[in-house]
């Protein structure tokens, strides 16, 4: 068993990447050295304070690089994430990780990553890793509007990969849903992370065309390590299964998708 690491990590850098969206780099060599794309870390502020976030929040590892930092994509959704967005260089956060199952990347099909919103995070890491191996990935990235789009210069700087951007209103990149960028005829291996309606749509498409699909799901979490059973999703056989230890990356065919 690869035990998770508990680490008080210093914020090395926090950069604005879009409206209410930040790129955070944390100094945690131990976790950075072990993390794989698709895994996550719990990020908290310790037991001394009770203001939100009191419970740690799960974040996909957005990069765990040769410079030994853990990169996170942080969007302000509520009081807890707003507080984390006010972190400054030198502040410390309590990390637990790396946690959960990573993506497994096919080498015999073209790899297409489908990201919705902050679902972009694991694919920054994955695209950067694949590029280092000399493999191409297509990175499809959707947001509602241009002001939410994570800086494509920053994406290229972090990963070396240029994202193909979709916005619902066409204010940046292509107009429409990210789904439009999938080309089933190329028989790609699909990897997806984003809002549930997007995952459902990708799952329908993958099943219809017989394409392999792994999804990274998000559910409210308590412990992050499989004890509290808080973060369940429904399996294809109707069981509640834990997204923290059995996921967050699942083969889409292991999960139940509403029709």
């Amino acid at each position, binding site marked *: 068993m690869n035990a*998770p690491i508990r680490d008080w990590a210093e914020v090395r850098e926090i950069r604005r990447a879009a409206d209410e969206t930040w790129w955070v780099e944390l100094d945690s060599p131990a976790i950075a050295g072990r993390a794989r794309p698709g895994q996550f870390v719990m990020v908290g502020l310790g*037991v001394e304070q009770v203001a939100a976030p*009191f419970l740690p929040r799960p974040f996909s590892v957005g990069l765990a690089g040769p410079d030994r930092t853990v990169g996170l994509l942080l969007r302000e959704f509520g009081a*807890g994430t707003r507080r984390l967005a006010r972190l400054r260089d030198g502040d410390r956060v309590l990390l*637990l990780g790396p946690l959960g199952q990573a993506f497994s990347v096919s080498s015999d099909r073209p790899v297409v990553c489908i990201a919705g919103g902050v679902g972009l995070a694991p694919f920054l890491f994955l695209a950067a890793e694949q590029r280092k191996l000399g493999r191409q990935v297509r990175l499809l990235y959707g947001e509602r509007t241009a002001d939410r789009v994570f800086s494509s210069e920053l994406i290229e700087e972090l990963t070396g990969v240029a994202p193909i951007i979709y916005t619902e209103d066409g204010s940046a990149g292509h107009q429409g849903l990210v789904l439009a960028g999938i080309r089933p005829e190329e028989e790609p291996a699909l990897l997806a992370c984003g809002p549930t309606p997007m995952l459902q749509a990708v799952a329908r498409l993958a099943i219809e065309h017989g394409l392999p699909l792994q999804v990274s799901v998000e559910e409210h979490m308590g412990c992050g*390590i499989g004890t509290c059973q808080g973060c369940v999703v429904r399996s294809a056989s109707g069981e509640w299964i834990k997204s923290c230890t059995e996921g967050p990356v699942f083969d889409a065919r292991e999960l139940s998708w509403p029709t």
Partner: protein
Amino acid sequence: MADLTQRLFGTQWQSPVLLASGTCGYGEEYAELIPLDEIGGIVTKAVSLEPRSGNPPHRVSETPGGMINAIGLQNVGLAAFIREKLPWLRDNLVRARVLINVVGHTEDEFEAVVAGLDGEDGFLGFEINVSCPNVKDGTLFGTDPAGLAGLVATLRRATARPLVVKLTPNVPDIGLYARICEENGADGLSTINTFPGMLIDVGKRRPVIGNVSGGVSGPAILPMGVYLTWRARQSSSLPILGIGGIRSSDDALQYILAGASLVQIGTALFVDPEVAVAVHRGVEAYCTESETPLRELVGGVQIPDRD
């Protein structure tokens, strides 16, 4: 050197700090993060006669100063617990004590779980869960004096092992239930389980928790837990395991001074797994500085005369 040892439930305790049911699984998940065998012990996730699938998500969410949960007692059931979970506890926890949290829909189910576990190795005793707010009949026994009396008496006949009853805070007088447990042969009390609560997403105008309501835990409930521990202590001489919102040794000492011999840490483990050892060390330091053995602090709060 501080003396944290106590003799309770027929055995020696090296530390007053336990991990609370539902927050530490069956121990194994925290084995790499917490030196379990150096603390007082653990109380397992609830075990029911048959496996339970639990509630729909969201099952957990943050609340001001704590969390709300409605897991719904998802667990592997008695047979799988004995086969898959108990051996690890038996083989890995030597000095730490194990209480198995037991739940049932009916008195017969509680009895079947207790009787089914009684002859097994690897644990000290039972914590009887009559106080789960997140399943339909979860507090049935915990809020009905006659039902509780019958249940405790039945379980007393089913086992000679320590029998601790985990009480709900959701009654007008917890002292009544403490007395009932004592009169019917229980060995100890855990005070308290979570408070029933509800959280609404105003954007969606829907409850956040899939089960609609849940149990509230964490620092927000600390003063209620301390008070109810003190109240239970007034009504019963049974040893008490204090629980609710503990995240520091100061919190733990409040429970101990209110009347708890042992304490359980729950929600705070999710924030920092090291909190259990930190609480143990803090209590140790307090005992050292005050040159008082832990057992002499239990119930030691001094209530001023009020006239």
